[in-house]
């Protein structure tokens, strides 16, 4: 079957154009992340000149800026980026794998599971540091397994998995409230962190484990990019294309849950970032190919921007999860209404 050369050239040209559009979108998202990061460092309650910020970052002792930038703003911005990347990437991986935007870890109870375990480890077991993260990862995987087991009958049915997940999520949230209400030093701030997420009080030395988790689990997930893309064609087609479905599922679940649990142990289950990042990234003009990287960057943007809004642009101060929660809720309702109309998956 021979082919006219112009047709082949046109095909190659179009593919290259798609690829460069995709690179442009990623570069744009990256620069928005960088800009918001810089904004967080420079302008808070007070203004710090970029020069001073850079000197603080280089480790110089800058009177009047050292503490604000080095101890308050920088850890906050770093945690926002790392948590945002983790939620965005992990959430999109679940949504792609299960072919359903509602199948995001923060909707189906995985984030609340990690959060409940973190609260339990901190309040009841008096643990801190990486031990809390280990608890969160174990609980996240446990919830994933539980939701899967409760909803699988002749294979996993999308809508049932989501309903079961929403139920499990609600139970876990009341568990979080129960544990917090018995805690001696119970504060509204803490409660909000574990229920909706917050980057308050971040400390730089806590960021290393999160960074390592993101690099490890994120790398693992990205190595499955092509298999995940094939899964979007349905399991039968993907398997016929040579994807090992069960193995891909396990790798994706472990990596995504691991990433999300680490971030949750630090920042709480920042509301709807995992849920929103993928769909927002998918709607960016020129977005094509795998959504994983654009969704991760979108997650970082959501957390940085949400935290900045919550701190400085609203009449009183709110943790980031309240802002992203207000953003995500209407979309959640929209999707549920759509399920209701179609009587099946959205």
């Amino acid at each position, binding site marked *: 079957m021979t082919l006219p050369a112009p047709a082949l050239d*046109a095909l190659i040209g179009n593919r290259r154009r798609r690829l460069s559009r995709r690179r442009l979108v990623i570069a744009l998202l990256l620069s928005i992340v960088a800009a918001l990061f810089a904004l967080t460092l420079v302008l808070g309650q007070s203004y710090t000149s970029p020069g001073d910020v850079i000197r603080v970052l280089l480790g110089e002792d800058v009177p009047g800026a050292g503490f604000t930038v080095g101890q308050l703003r920088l850890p906050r911005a770093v945690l926002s980026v790392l948590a945002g990347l983790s939620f965005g990437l992990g959430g999109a991986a679940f949504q792609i794998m299960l*072919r359903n935007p509602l199948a995001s870890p923060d909707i189906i109870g995985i984030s609340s599971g990690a959060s409940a375990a973190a609260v339990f480890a901190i309040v009841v077991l008096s643990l801190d540091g990486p031990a809390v993260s280990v608890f969160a990862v174990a609980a996240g995987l446990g919830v994933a397994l539980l939701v899967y087991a409760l909803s699988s009958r002749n294979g996993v049915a999308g809508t049932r998995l989501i309903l079961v997940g929403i139920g499990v999520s609600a139970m876990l949230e009341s568990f979080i409230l129960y544990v917090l209400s018995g805690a001696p030093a119970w504060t509204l701030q803490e409660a909000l962190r574990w229920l909706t997420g917050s980057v308050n009080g971040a400390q730089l030395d806590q960021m290393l484990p999160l960074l390592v988790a993101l690099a490890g689990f994120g790398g693992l997930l990205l190595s499955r990019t092509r298999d995940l893309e094939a899964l979007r064609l349905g399991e039968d087609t993907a398997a016929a294309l*040579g994807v090992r479905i069960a193995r891909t599922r396990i790798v994706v679940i472990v990596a995504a849950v691991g990433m999300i649990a680490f971030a949750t142990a630090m920042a709480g289950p920042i509301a709807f970032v995992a849920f929103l990042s993928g769909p927002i990234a998918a709607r960016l003009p020129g977005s094509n190919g795998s959504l994983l990287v654009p969704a991760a960057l979108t997650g970082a943007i959501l957390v940085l921007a949400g935290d900045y809004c919550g701190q400085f642009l609203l009449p009183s101060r709110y943790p980031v999860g309240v802002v992203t929660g207000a953003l995500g809720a209407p979309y959640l309702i929209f999707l549920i209404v759509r399920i209701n109309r179609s009587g099946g998956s959205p």
Partner: protein
Amino acid sequence: MTLHALTTSGLSAGYGDAVILDGLDLAVLPGRITVIVGANACGKSTLLRAMSRLIAPRRGQVLLDGKSIHHIPSRELARTLGLLPQSPIAPEGITVADLVSRGRHPHQGAFARWTRGDDEAVAAALAATRTIELAERPMDELSGGQRQRAWIAMALAQQTEVLLLDEPTTFLDISHQIEVLDLLTDLNQTRGTTIVMVLHDLNLAARYADELVAMAGGRLYACGRPEEVLTEHNVRHVFGLESRIIIDPTSGRPIMLPIGRHRMATDSRPARSGHPD
């Protein structure tokens, strides 16, 4: 192109407790077109799924060139054996070119670069299915026939020597059905691709098959040349339907004319053609 022997021996498979295939033996003719027919829910799709390792056999095995397909690395198997499922899913907004390029999956490693060879395979698949003009159009904007051609193009881009297709003509009007079947026959004749497909329409099955396979109750009921398999006796047993078989003057293949309870001519000749099928 090498010819491959795909066979099942004593193949039993099912879902949960339900046994759907029950000790099925089938030897696909290499380099030929095999068409599987049978009543709804008799296990045709299940057979194709078992033959392409989508479900594991309970008993018996599926052999490719004498080797159990469960012992062949999945990527390698996917370079030899392709499957177009009954209802494949197109991701929202995907273009035809993008869809077709996914057929290259088994030819690429996790991080391998897209090569000119990949581009050529995609272009050839688009050309063979006459979907080049549609390449940049989103799948959700195409007609049923165009969409089906795009799916077949994806399967062609996979460049397998054996291709299984589950009801590739469902939902197509008659001219598009013929177009798809002609396309698959071209593929079989020019490249020697071994084709196994499930078809609903018995007359099209008899016309395009080198080997016709009738399934009933999870087993092969009959198997052979169309004129051997499409008989009044077999139609009665497989579909529970009375019929007349005549010979198609164009193709020389058998044609099945169903006999219902109504619209009988008084001299008891075969039913008059009232409405088009």
